[in-house]
């Protein structure tokens, strides 16, 4: 579903990504860990077509990153720690706007908006402007925004940051549902426990390179932490 080969990104003389190779199979959930500055967000922004790589190639849902960016944007939903929603619009107006931007209209859009408002537990706030919502509520709207066009791939950048337990549980349930329906998830997180709990593959990104890939089955939190710490100290696991 996502194929990355030799992906590199430089900002001036600074090498942020240094030849990343990664394959994320369809229907899988991959969590990417790494310290600040490791290149995680840059990797996600490149996959989301928000930034161009300096070199290397990548395909998302079979579409080439450079040649078919528009097609990739139809296939992906992006959730960041910033909700990317309009403060002056209501919850429903935000969803309708983004739905229309993805070509939805009429009954299809009505149904999709209703379903997502219900799934996210925000139907009772649908007529409220998002500027008065709590951080957790805004993040629920952001998830609904990302799912409005039924993407095949979800790209998540620290989606749990600032969420209360209830909002976090709704996000987890949504991600599990998405995966159970064949969706592919790539999640960047600092939360080792959350990543281990949710993902079926853990990727450790250090200094712009994939340092290690691990199957979390049977892996304890402490073992996960040990791997992370050893990579951070440069012992390479």
């Amino acid at each position, binding site marked *: 579903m996502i194929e990355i080969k030799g992906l590199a990104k430089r900002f001036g003389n600074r090498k942020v990504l240094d030849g990343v190779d990664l394959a994320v199979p369809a229907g899988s959930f991959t969590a990417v860990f790494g310290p600040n500055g490791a290149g995680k967000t840059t990797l996600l922004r490149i996959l989301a077509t928000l930034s161009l790589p300096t070199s290397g190639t990548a395909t998302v849902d079979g579409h080439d990153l450079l040649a078919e960016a528009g097609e990739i*944007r139809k296939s*992906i939903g992006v959730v960041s720690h910033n909700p*990317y*929603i309009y403060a002056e*619009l209501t919850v429903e*107006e935000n969803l309708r*706007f983004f739905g229309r*931007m*993805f070509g939805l209209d009429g009954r299809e859009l009505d149904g999709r908006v209703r379903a997502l408002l219900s799934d996210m537990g925000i139907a009772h706030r649908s007529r409220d402007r998002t500027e008065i919502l709590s951080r957790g509520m805004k993040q629920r709207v952001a998830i609904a925004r990302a799912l409005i066009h039924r993407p095949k791939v979800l790209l998540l950048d620290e989606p749990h940051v600032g969420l209360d337990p209830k909002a976090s549980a709704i996000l987890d349930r949504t991600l599990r549902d998405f995966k159970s329906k064949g969706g592919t998830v790539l999640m960047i997180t600092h939360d080792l426990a959350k990543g281990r709990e949710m993902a079926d593959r853990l990727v450790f990104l250090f200094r712009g390179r994939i340092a290690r890939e691990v199957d979390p089955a049977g892996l304890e939190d402490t073992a996960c932490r040990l791997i992370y710490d050893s990579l951070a100290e440069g012992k390479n696991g």
Partner: protein
Amino acid sequence: MASMALQIARKDLLVEFRTKRTLNSMLLFSILVILAFRFAFSTTKLDAAVVAPAALWITFILAGMFALSAGFAREKDQDTFQALLLCPGKRSSIYLGKMLSSFVLIMLVELFSLAAMAVFFEYDFAGPAQFASVLVVMMLGTLGFVGVGTLLSAIAMNTQMREVMLPVLLLPLIVFTIIMPAVTATSRLLNNESILDVSAEIRLLITFAIVYIVAAIMLFGYVIEE
């Protein structure tokens, strides 16, 4: 592309009419400029056809800067520009949507300013034909102005002093291509000349509106690329 542009323009106008942040500033600014010009000529014999075109176009251009700056600044400040970039379709749809919403907003303020000018400068339009001719010049001048201004506003969005950068980039480009023909045409029309008499100015305004908009559509994707 047109559908996405219309959705963006509709959203921008909905947000603006709901908050009226930019619109109120523009209206206040325009009435202040008109009044300042009126008071400046309060002790001399006022020839509206001479003073009004300058007063109007200073108002249009400077009030228009508010609209151009606000369009992208709001997206940048709320980080919603990223969400627009994540939508499918051509990047130029974003440019066209922003251009359209700025055009509508500026035209509203221009109509208000024109009415204020007629009241405070005690100017009577000769008839609907004269009013329509002035309106055509205003629309063409504004189209060229927002055509290039929207692109430059996108460039200024990522600079540290974006409020300063926009006029610095924009004004030199429009002095001879928009302001000069628009002021000349408006002045001649208010002096009861017909629209055919200002066809040279109108051709210039149409040409530069097309050149600016086509160039901006081609360049916008590069301008917003990281």
